């Protein structure tokens, strides 16, 4: 196992619909919370890595705006845009810099006002020609292609996807900070409005305002932090930067690569994972992660999630214990890292997974192209 860096602080702003807030005000709220969680001060930071939200017009210069406003003049800085895999990738970049001695305490920050700031999630993808020529808009459509083929090859059903939504909502109901806490049934999922068949509204993640921050440091320094450190035992990435010109793009082979690289670095396998935070922009994503993580054989994730028992508390693999992108808040996977840290610390109250020692956290982004994985433990 690697373990040469640790997450010592996690913080989130309020989440949901927050009129009047800006990415900057929310970033301030999250970073302050993360520093407090770690028992550190702004002056301790010598690294700042950020992900610009959909409402941060400065794009890859986001770190510059944020560092300027927050008065941070670090040894290490930068922004990365890789959608839902960014959180994991930035933690990895922070960890490597710390191990190399290039920085000692690195903050990773994401903030967005996607809910109230006028973000539109209807852009077409494409290279050479826009997919909009054929009416291929938005993000649900890419995952609909994945879901449809998985259904055709393996007999996966909309009801099985529904069990992911129902279970994540159940988990969110135990999380006082979650945006959507009202319980839903499988019938509610089935009755929800179709978006792009086979995906319905309750197969889709939320759109949220909010911010999240992590503080990463060395294991030695972590011992002096308020809650100790949660170690990065393994880290991995995988990328299929081509889309449909790669014959297996629809099945996202890079997700498997990212997880198995992280397993190898940590010296573990799927049976060692006690709890998992799996990036869930759409319900089908969870099914694929279960297959890619080796928790089930390829094609067998549908029956595994049916009924929800195996993926909830007391089951074989509790997933997305805070509610995930589907029900907690859509922070593009950043809250998955927060929940992973909190589960390992054992501070999750009624949603705590008993004896959680190893947590897998995954992320995936862009036109389903990028993937990251973290193995967290004490």
């Amino acid at each position, binding site marked *: 196992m690697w373990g040469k860096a640790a997450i010592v602080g996690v913080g989130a702003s309020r989440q949901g619909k927050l009129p009047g807030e800006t990415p900057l005000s929310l970033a301030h709220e999250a970073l302050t919370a993360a520093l407090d969680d770690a028992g550190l001060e702004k002056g301790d930071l010598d690294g700042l890595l950020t992900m610009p939200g959909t409402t941060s017009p400065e794009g890859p210069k986001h770190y510059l705006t944020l560092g300027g406003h927050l008065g941070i003049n670090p040894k290490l800085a930068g922004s990365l845009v890789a959608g839902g895999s960014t959180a994991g990738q930035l933690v990895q970049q922070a960890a490597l810099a710390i191990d190399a001695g290039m920085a000692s305490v690195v903050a990773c920050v994401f903030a967005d006002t996607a809910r109230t700031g006028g973000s539109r999630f*209807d852009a077409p993808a*494409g*290279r*050479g*020609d826009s*997919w909009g*020529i*054929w*009416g*291929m*808009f*938005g993000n*649900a*459509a890419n995952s*609909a*292609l*994945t879901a*449809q*083929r998985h259904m*055709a*090859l393996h007999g996966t059903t909309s009801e099985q996807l529904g069990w992911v939504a129902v279970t994540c909502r159940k988990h969110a109901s135990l999380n006082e900070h979650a945006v959507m806490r009202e319980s839903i049934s499988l019938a509610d999922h089935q009755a929800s*409005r*179709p*978006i*792009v*068949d*086979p*995906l319905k509204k309750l197969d889709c993640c939320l759109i949220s305002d909010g911010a999240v921050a992590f503080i990463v440091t060395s294991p030695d320094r972590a011992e002096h932090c308020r809650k100790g450190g949660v170690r990065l035992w393994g880290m991995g990435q995988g990328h299929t930067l*081509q889309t*449909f*010109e790669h*014959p297996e793009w*629809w099945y996202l082979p890079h997700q498997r690569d990212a997880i198995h690289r992280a397993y190898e670095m940590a010296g573990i396998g799927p049976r060692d994972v006690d709890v998992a935070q799996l990036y869930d922009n759409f319900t089908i994503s969870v099914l694929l992660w279960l297959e890619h993580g080796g928790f089930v054989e390829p094609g067998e994730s549908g029956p595994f999630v049916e009924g929800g028992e195996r993926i909830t508390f007391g089951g074989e693999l509790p997933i997305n214990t805070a509610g995930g992108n589907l029900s907690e808040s859509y922070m593009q996977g950043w809250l998955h890292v927060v929940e992973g840290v909190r589960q390992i610390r054992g501070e999750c109250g009624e949603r705590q997974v008993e004896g959680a020692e190893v947590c897998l956290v995954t992320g995936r982004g862009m036109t389903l192209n990028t993937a990251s994985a973290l193995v967290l433990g004490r």
Partner: protein
Amino acid sequence: MNGPFWDAARAGELRLQRCAGCDALRYPVSDICPNCLSLDHRWERVSGDGEVTSFGVFRHQYRPEWPVPYTVALIRLAEGPTLISNVIECPPEDVYVGMPVSAVFEDGIPKFAPRRGGR
């Protein structure tokens, strides 16, 4: 870069790039062969026959000019490359993974319809 693709489509033909370096047929259109990085290619007509490898039926209307429902599909051509396109001349409910289709041209845009004599 993609001019010849669209010129051909307006003439009712599907033409893709074949790499002069490694002979690979490719799509999407690119100046660079993603297989061997050669910058040389020629345009070659393909059959337009293929099969649906996956599809989604739009029910939520994203843009006023795209009334729903309509079907967006991945079409794997008989010659190998995959295109993203629409399946038309067929109710969305009747589209399936593995469906044989052939290229048709609507306002100079390549789309696909159920292949005559297909299953």
